């Protein structure tokens, strides 16, 4: 505003000044002409002319003075205005600079953004190029216009081999037709697709399962211009699913085919999955879906014990659980079952159990019959054995017997005694195996027991001229059944005496360690072949070298020994080299001193 009025003022002064100059110049010219035109004129003319010039000069000077003053005023004002103007200008400049700085910063920011976008684009491109999915684009005819390198890993082709070509023949025919049918709808509806699984033929002829996702593409004018999408190779997953399905099918078939009850117990909820066995084997039409329903079907006499043993197993670190119990059928009768399972443990805590239950009623019945039979026969055998023993004893005491007859009678008595032992062993083994006998658990002094047995055997030991030592390193009482342990010690000692050549060395040792009592007998006899050691404690097993030495063993002695020791909670084993003697060792739990009569 100020600037514009100032410019108007300038123009005004300029016009005024110009007018003055013209006027003055005119006056001066007029005066001069008067002087020049009339040189001959009189002096007053000349004076007149000189007056005019003088006036003109005066006017000129006056005009100049006025103008100069005006100019000065104007310049002064101008000066002021210019200073205002300058200030405004500076402000404007500052504003401009600030604006420029802001602009610069914006440009920088934008540039950075662009660079970052570029980087992202690069990264994205890198991702697309390097992802394990096959990323592709097709033109409307189905010809490949873009492919990343993943296609090589998935289908065995380099992208260059396929670019520009129709890739649809790689899809298995049935899936291809299904896809073709869907396409018009996809294009018309501008739909994306996802999770469509099709098989593609790999270059090497194998089928690969690819999971497809993609979308149709449209130009700015809305025209359909092709497809873009990606294929994920899920062959491995598919194969695993297939294998799982087959395995599941196999399991289902086996579960149906078996005569056992298969079960799967979730220990957190108590829920049990079972196959059909509960119905087909035991007639439970309702099934037995909970661990409580199962427990309720266990025979009342055994329920607590079965539950306690299962609980005990779950709290242990053992892998397998086995139990035998009576189980109520749908009709109220009881079946004997053998139930076995394994526990699945997470951080040591059992969370699941899987197992099978089989009906062993018939086996139990057969066992009982066998055991009854053995018991019956054995008892019946005892009468004639006692008759033989006693008659031969009487015969041996008869006077005036010929030496030869005495000899025969002695041999007959020995045979009868062996028969007696055999029957005793058979009965003991049968009893221990059936579990019908509950062995006593009392404190037993093994040192006294050993001495007592050795006294009984002294005659035989002397006859074979064995040197026998008994070393007691600790005589804490063991926990067991005295009668049965006497038999254990007798069997082990008589083996040592029997299988050691005359004049051998036999060392018996008794040691107490922590909570165990350890008893062992070492001989320097024929030893036990390595192969036989593992089977030594089996029923009716006899090592080859034992048979060749003496044909009369029953193969029951060591089996009986093991049954007794194990039922008492101990262990038995044999250390030996063939021909270099043997050591038989057993351990028993130590009887607690307090409250137990030693």
């Amino acid at each position, binding site marked *: 505003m100020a600037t514009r009025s100032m410019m108007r003022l300038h123009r005004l002064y300029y016009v005024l000044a110009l007018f003055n100059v013209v006027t003055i110049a005119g006056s001066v010219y007029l005066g001069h002409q008067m002087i020049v035109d009339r040189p001959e004129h009189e002096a007053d003319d000349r004076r007149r002319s000189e007056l005019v010039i003088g006036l003109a000069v005066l006017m000129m000077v006056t005009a100049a003075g006025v103008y100069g003053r005006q100019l000065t005023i104007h310049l002064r004002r101008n000066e002021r205005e210019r200073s205002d103007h300058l200030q405004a200008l500076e402000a404007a400049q500052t504003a401009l600079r600030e604006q420029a700085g802001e602009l610069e910063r914006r440009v920088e920011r934008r540039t950075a953004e662009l660079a970052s976008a570029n980087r992202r684009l690069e990264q994205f491109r890198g991702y697309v190029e390097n992802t394990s999915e096959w990323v592709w684009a097709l033109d409307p005819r189905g010809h490949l216009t873009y492919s990343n390198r993943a296609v090589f890993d998935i289908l065995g082709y380099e992208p260059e081999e396929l670019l520009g070509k129709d890739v649809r023949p790689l899809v298995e025919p049935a899936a291809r037709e299904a896809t073709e049918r869907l396409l018009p709808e996809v294009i018309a509806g501008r739909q994306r697709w996802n999770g469509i699984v099709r098989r593609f033929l790999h270059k090497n002829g194998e089928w690969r399962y690819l999971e497809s996702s993609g979308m149709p593409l449209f130009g700015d004018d809305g025209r359909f211009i092709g497809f873009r999408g990606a294929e994920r190779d899920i062959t491995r997953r598919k194969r695993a699913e297939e294998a799982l399905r087959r395995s599941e099918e196999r399991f289902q078939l086996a579960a149906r085919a078996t005569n056992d009850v298969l079960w799967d117990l979730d220990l957190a909820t108590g829920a049990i999955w079972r196959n059909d066995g509960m119905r087909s084997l035991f007639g439970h039409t309702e099934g037995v879906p909970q661990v409580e329903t199962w427990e309720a079907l266990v025979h009342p006499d055994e329920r607590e014990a079965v539950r306690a043993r299962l609980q005990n197993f779950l709290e242990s670190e053992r892998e397998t659980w086995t139990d035998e119990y009576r189980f109520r059928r749908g009709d109220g009768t009881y079946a004997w079952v053998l139930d076995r399972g394994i526990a699945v443990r997470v951080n040591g805590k059992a969370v699941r159990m899987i197992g099978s239950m089989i009906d062993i009623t018939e086996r139990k019945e057969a066992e009982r019959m066998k055991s009854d039979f053995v018991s019956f026969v054995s*008892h019946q055998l*005892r*009468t004639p054995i*006692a008759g033989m023993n*006693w008659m031969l*004893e009487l015969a041996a005491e008869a006077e005036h017997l010929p030496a030869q007859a005495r000899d025969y009678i002695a041999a007959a008595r020995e045979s009868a005694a062996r028969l007696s032992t055999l029957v005793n062993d058979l009965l003991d083994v049968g009893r221990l195996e059936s579990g019908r006998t509950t062995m006593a658990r009392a404190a037993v002094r093994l040192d006294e027991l050993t001495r007592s047995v050795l006294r009984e055997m002294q005659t035989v030991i002397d006859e074979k001229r064995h040197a026998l030592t008994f070393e007691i390193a600790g005589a804490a009482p063991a926990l067991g059944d005295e009668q049965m342990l006497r038999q254990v010690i007798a069997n082990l000692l008589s083996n040592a005496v029997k299988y050691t050549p005359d004049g051998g060395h036999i060392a018996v040792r008794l040691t107490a360690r922590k909570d165990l009592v350890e008893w062992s007998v070492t001989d320097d006899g024929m030893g036990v072949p390595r192969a036989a050691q593992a089977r030594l404690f089996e029923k009716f097993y006899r090592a080859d070298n034992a048979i060749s030495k003496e044909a009369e063993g029953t193969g029951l002695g060591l089996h009986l020994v093991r049954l007794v020791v194990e039922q008492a909670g101990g262990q038995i084993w044999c250390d030996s080299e063939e021909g270099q003697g043997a050591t038989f060792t057993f351990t028993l739990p130590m009887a607690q001193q307090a409250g137990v009569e030693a």
Partner: protein
Amino acid sequence: MSATARVLLVEDDKFLRRACAASLRQRGFEVTTASDGEEALRLARSPPYADIILLDLLMPKLPGIEVLKALKSQPDTSRIPVLILSNSSRDDDRRQALQLGAAGYYVKANLSLRELGVQVNQLVQRDDAN
């Protein structure tokens, strides 16, 4: 032994009966025999009373355990020591017999006549001492 001790031997097997009786007689006992449970009770209850009774368990007519119960339930016979001579080595049988008051329990096939003689002698002498 003040007088000859009387033994009542109850055994259904004739060979055992014969051998056992012969052995005991050789050792100076007076032996009466019975071959079933009823006969055993009849003989046991009629005087002169035996000083000791050797009793089989598995017998015709009346099982040995019932004979033992009957003997122990009568004042006349309850004080006579009874040795069980059985074929059974089952703990249950042994325990039951001892609980009913038998003085001892032996498995015949594992017992020699010599040992039997010793046992009988001891029981009779102890009985005498009372």
